[in-house]
């Protein structure tokens, strides 16, 4: 009988420096077989710690994690055979060529490039023209594609990708996610990926929004956006810098943060769009442009992050 979940994680906690830094505060989640699960959160949210525990590289303080039904602490050797891990920073040999890197990582798993070529075909054909080039001389996007090939070459059951698109140009980022989607569909490889880019979250089946070592929520991207109940306004004016200061000053503002080229603003109970306009005009933003906006993952994250901070002041 196949395991229903590739990963089951139960109240996982981890601290550093003898408890002074709480990296994970009792995180629980499950990842279904063949699912693409996203860990979304800012730097320092605990994403890398979670990956390292999943990759058997760190021991949890408490809680348990099973990968493919195997305990990551007791059965770490077997877990290592079944995962493909791509750390957050570039971790290939800069002085070896593309092909040498790939061949080496294939050999460490007791396989060869030829044996699993089909798995990496799409990605590898893109970097193959540079196979004689040293890995250190590749562009950011190429490096990440090579790293993905190296993590995939032994046909893992689960891919663990820690911020795979950080430092990669937008076009390559998009390509990267498309490749992951294809891997999952064609070969049933489960993926857990993290990203600080909220716009990439929509690529995942389910995401967990993470902050300060805890999950704010876990749901499908659509579900998370659907649970956003507030009215959201998009605000612009000629003096953007002063605008944010004025927004933050006003008692009618609940949240205001920069979103692309505008600010996303939610209002305190009892205030509406007309109040906002009147206030901004009174502050000299006669040219202000206020419109109702559709919430995105980032808005949900900001709203949840604020509620969680209000609930447990630190």
């Amino acid at each position: 009988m196949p395991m229903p979940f590739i990963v089951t994680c139960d109240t996982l906690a981890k601290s550093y420096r003898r408890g002074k830094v709480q990296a994970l505060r009792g995180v629980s989640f499950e990842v279904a077989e063949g699912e693409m699960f996203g860990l979304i959160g800012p730097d320092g949210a605990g994403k890398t710690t979670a990956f390292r525990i999943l990759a058997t590289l760190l021991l949890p303080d408490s809680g348990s994690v099973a990968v493919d039904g195997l305990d990551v602490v007791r059965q770490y050797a077997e877990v290592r055979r079944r995962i493909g891990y791509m750390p957050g920073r570039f971790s290939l040999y800069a002085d070896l060529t593309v092909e040498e890197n790939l061949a080496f990582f294939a050999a460490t798993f007791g396989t060869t490039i030829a044996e699993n070529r089909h798995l990496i075909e799409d990605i590898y054909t893109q970097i193959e023209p540079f196979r004689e080039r040293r890995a250190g001389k590749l562009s950011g996007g190429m490096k990440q594609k090579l790293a993905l090939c190296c993590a995939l070459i032994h046909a893992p059951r689960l891919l663990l990708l820690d911020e795979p698109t950080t430092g990669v140009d937008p076009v390559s980022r998009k390509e990267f996610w498309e490749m992951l989607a294809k891997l999952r569909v064609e070969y049933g490889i489960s993926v857990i990926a993290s990203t600080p880019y909220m716009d990439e979250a929509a690529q995942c089946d389910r995401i967990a929004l993470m902050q300060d070592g805890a999950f704010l929520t876990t749901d499908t991207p659509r579900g998370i956006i659907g649970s956003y109940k507030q009215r959201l306004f998009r605000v612009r004016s000629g003096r953007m810098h002063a605008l944010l200061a004025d927004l933050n000053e006003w008692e009618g503002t609940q949240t205001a943060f920069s979103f692309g080229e505008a600010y996303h603003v939610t209002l305190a109970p009892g205030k509406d769009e007309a109040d906002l306009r009147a206030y901004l005009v009174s502050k000299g933003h006669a040219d202000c442009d206020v419109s109702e906006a559709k919430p995105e993952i980032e808005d949900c994250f900001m709203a949840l992050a604020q509620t969680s901070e209000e609930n447990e002041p630190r």
Partner: protein
Amino acid sequence: MKQFSAFLLKEFRHMGRDWRTLLILVVMPVVMVLLFGYAITTEVTQTRTAVLDPTHDYLTRRITDRIAANPFFELTATCASAEEVDALFREGRIDLAVVFAPELASAKAADASAVVQLLIDGSEPNQAAVRQGYAMQVIQEELLTASVASGEPVTDVSAQIPLINVSTRMLYNPQGKSAYNFVPAVIGMILLLLCTLMSSISIVREKENGTMEVLLASPLSPAVIIAAKLVPYFVVGMVNLLSILCLAHFVMGVPVEGSLVAFLALSVLYIGVALALGLLISTLVSTQLAAMLLSMLMIVPTMYLSGLVFQLDAMPLPAQAVSTIIPARWFMDGARRLMIQGVEVRHLFTNFMVLGAELLVLFGLSVLLFKKRLE
């Protein structure tokens, strides 16, 4: 096995790509041996000598001839005055001057204080001491033969030159050739420097570059990682050992009096200890800089406490006690005795035992400390 050979291939590739470092690793030992063997020498050769002989009598001419005939001395000038001698010293053209007093011929009658004076350039004290001793010996011998021949006892030629001829003879290294002494010492230093420093750096580099994280998350066993990391530097160590040995033996004429097999066995054991030390260092630190500093920290006491620079017997007891755990001490001592004294292997039992025990302890400790995870 496939994992191991792939890893080994990778290590040799790293080495080949960094050919400048490799060149230093292979050439530096040769340069060091040549430097120690030829340039930085403590032996005394070709003492340029001047003679100031105002009397030109039978005895002074015999002494002068004797000096001229000795390969140790090179008679470069015959001076007429003390000023001339002085000038030659200042110009750096002579190392030693023999100045005969005018009264030497009638020494038996005179009170004979300082009838033969030796002037020596003392700016290199060690060489000066050797030159003084040898010159005095030559002159005394001549005076002695002269007095025996003439049947008259030479009672007191000079207050500074005692008549009792203290004859010393150096065993095993009669010419006092410094290469004999230095070659085993340099082999000991270089092997420690290269094997410890390079192996520790090569492992720590994986940590610093983040590749260790990927290696640990793979099914590679620590044994494979450790072995593949150490084997290349074992090879480099052996290449160095053999190149130094060939250079020393065939070019510089350093003998291998004892068993070559025993010498190689001792060297292999010593390389093993050096590699284990590098491995231990790599488990303790996480940056290449720290690994380098810690390796250097190991090498300084080795210089001082192995008998390479300072004599061990002359050290205070605590220092002598510490020196007993310095692997280089046991290697250098064993290597010297095998190469130059030609002792039988059974006399080196202690050396083999100490190095063997250190290998086991260091290696065992490193394997225990080697982390299977990131913490």
